[in-house]
């Protein structure tokens, strides 16, 4: 838990002054009026990584940068953009790292190949362990 706490404090320790000098981001802490749009924004925000924190999405972080990103997401959703288009825009800006939904790429293919392997392995083990004896 300790590194987690340290990371947590690292981002909490961002001086207040920096927060005041940020451009205003009213939608960081404000919901969209249309519940459908807000739900779409919330679903998207939960899958975007807060770049200043450890293992938190921008939907659960107090970091100013996460607030800024929430503002961006809500504004764009309100403007009628598709969530995946916003994700693509953020990925272009910050890299794949910002998205918690891994895309299949040269860097990430094992994340999809290995579970498949696990699935096959599990099926094989089950077959050997119990399947063969089903007739007993």
């Amino acid at each position, binding site marked *: *838990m300790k590194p987690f706490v340290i990371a947590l404090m690292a981002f909490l320790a961002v001086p207040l002054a920096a927060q005041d000098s940020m451009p205003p981001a009213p939608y960081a*802490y404000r919901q969209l009026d249309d519940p459908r749009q807000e739900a779409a924004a919330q679903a998207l925000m939960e899958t975007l990584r807060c770049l200043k924190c450890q*293992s938190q999405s921008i939907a659960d972080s107090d970091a100013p940068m996460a607030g800024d990103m929430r503002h961006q997401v809500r504004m764009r959703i309100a403007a009628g953009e598709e969530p995946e288009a916003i994700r693509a825009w953020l990925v272009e800006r910050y890299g794949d*790292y910002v998205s*918690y*939904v891994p895309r299949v790429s040269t860097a990430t293919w094992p994340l999809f190949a290995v579970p498949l392997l696990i699935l096959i392995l599990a099926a094989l083990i*089950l077959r050997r*362990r119990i399947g063969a004896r089903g007739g007993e």
Partner: protein
Amino acid sequence: MIPELGLAALWLAAALAALQLTGGAAAQRGDAGDLAALVRPAAILQGLLALFAFTMLLWSFVVTDLSVKLVADNSHSMKPLIFKLAGAWGNHEGSMLLWVTVLSLAGGLIALIERRLPERTMQATLAAQGFVALGFYAFLLLSSNPFERLPVPAAEGLGLNPLLQDIGLAFHPPTLYFGYVGLSVAFSFAVGALLTRQVTPEFARVMRPWILGAWVFLTLGITAGSYWAYYELGWGGWWFWDPVENASLMPWLAATALLHSASVLAARDALRSWTIMLGVVAFSMSMVGTFLVRSGILTSVHAFAVDPERGSFILALLALYIGGALLLFALRAGTISEGQRFALLSREGALVFNNVMLSAALGIVLLGTLYPLLAEALDMRVSVGPPYFNPMSAVFVIPMLMVMTVGPLLRWRHDNIDRIRLPLALLVAIAVTVALLVGLLASVGLLPMLGLVLSVPLALAAFLPLKGRRLTRVPLATWGMVIAHFGVAVALFGMANESAFTRERLAAIEIGGTERVEDWQITLEGVDAVAGPNWTALEARLIAQRGQGEPVRISPQARNFWTPPQQTTESALITRWDGQLYAVVGDQTGDGRWQLRLWWKPFVTFIWYGGILVALGGVLAIAGRVLGDLKRRRVAARSMARRSERGRLRGAAQTAGDRA
């Protein structure tokens, strides 16, 4: 002087661990001579010496001996005593010393009391225990000496970080360490059984309390950590798939599988090599957990690569233990027969299925945790988070939950589907009803829906094994199973409800203004500046009213600590039986209004109640098993005494007859 005594004790303990290893190894070569006889005493003494060393470290912290580097770095003369003590293990060196102390005390304990296994198996077990301990002693003595002195004593300690002065944080890591160490004992037993080819039901019975104990500690540690994150981070999230969380989840998954496999071995003499394999995996996972948390690799892979001494040491230990154990397993597994056979539809069949599912889920978590680190080492940045972990692990967890519902109803070895047709139909009917109700009344995502649909029948099915039995005569261990399974259902119900029906309200409101979330009305009465010993805070006075109910006052705070400067949110909670209201106060907006974050989280508390129930089930199972063992031992002793009495009488009669 005190620290030097501790250090000396540590060196002696390391030497004894080496002796334990040599003695045990000698015994394996058929040399049951003097060395082998030393194994048990060496283990006991080693435990005592490690305890002594740890006590010396505690003492250095109690008196705040600032000539000791660790004390100067992590303590402060003004700290309250309890946090001075907790400071002893709230750092790298101290926590590793605690690890090895618990490890060697556990070794000493089994050396002292465990007499059920063949002596050679015990010696091999203790040798393995000594081998594991030796690695940690080497780590402590060569690269993380907790007793290191400063050339010039510090004037004052550095460790007065108020955020770390939290009683939960002080006891959370040791809880997990107890879990890790329990699994290392199980591992030693597995190695001992494997070396001497004694993979018997007796071995499983001896190992089981240690697995159960480890499992209880891990369960409690995970539950507490989750509640802490929920309460402290201020956004109502309770699981982040953070590597540190996964570091405790992975051993838990492995321990759960091992526990059930060992039960099959104990009851039915089946799944021999599978149990051994899981023993190796469970210990490996606790080593991986230790590595993740202790090596500093999580803060930054690159920082780790620049100063890799400690991390590489743990990594080398990891490779040595896991590699060695797997090699041994590969060499010996062929000589272990599989044990009793069973049909597909049987209690064993269900348990094997779930063991495979648990192991597969473990594989997913392991992959998702380690892959980003690996990618980062290769200069690629990959994020793996809930959108990956949730569906991927659900592929295995959902079938597991289904089988878990019916598994305990099945008979050992072979069962007939007709026998359980009625309860099965009932459970399916309940599941369908829940699905229809939820589907009609709300629109819910697939995973929360499955969670809701499975949790209700699972909760009911948990109690079915009690059907038709006199409740007072049901063994404690069976109660343990019932309660633990029920706990899983309760936690699942909480998780599914929280993710399906949470209502969120973010708003900026003026003093006197009112906001609504679900059926709550929250009025902002005022905002005050308040001060604590080392912080100032803005405290919002809120009045929360549910429907026409009694208004409740709550006061969330936004705190500013000044040494070091940090900001924290202190959320305010109102707990009702069917959920929690979660309120956080944020900054003031330009026009003088206040940011409020409000959530209604239905049944969220069930997540942690479930965790506690699972742990309680574990405790009941341990109590049942240990009491059973004690009773058996008493009966055995009595019959032994009776037999020798009879022998003596017969002998006396014989002599009398001879004389006559």
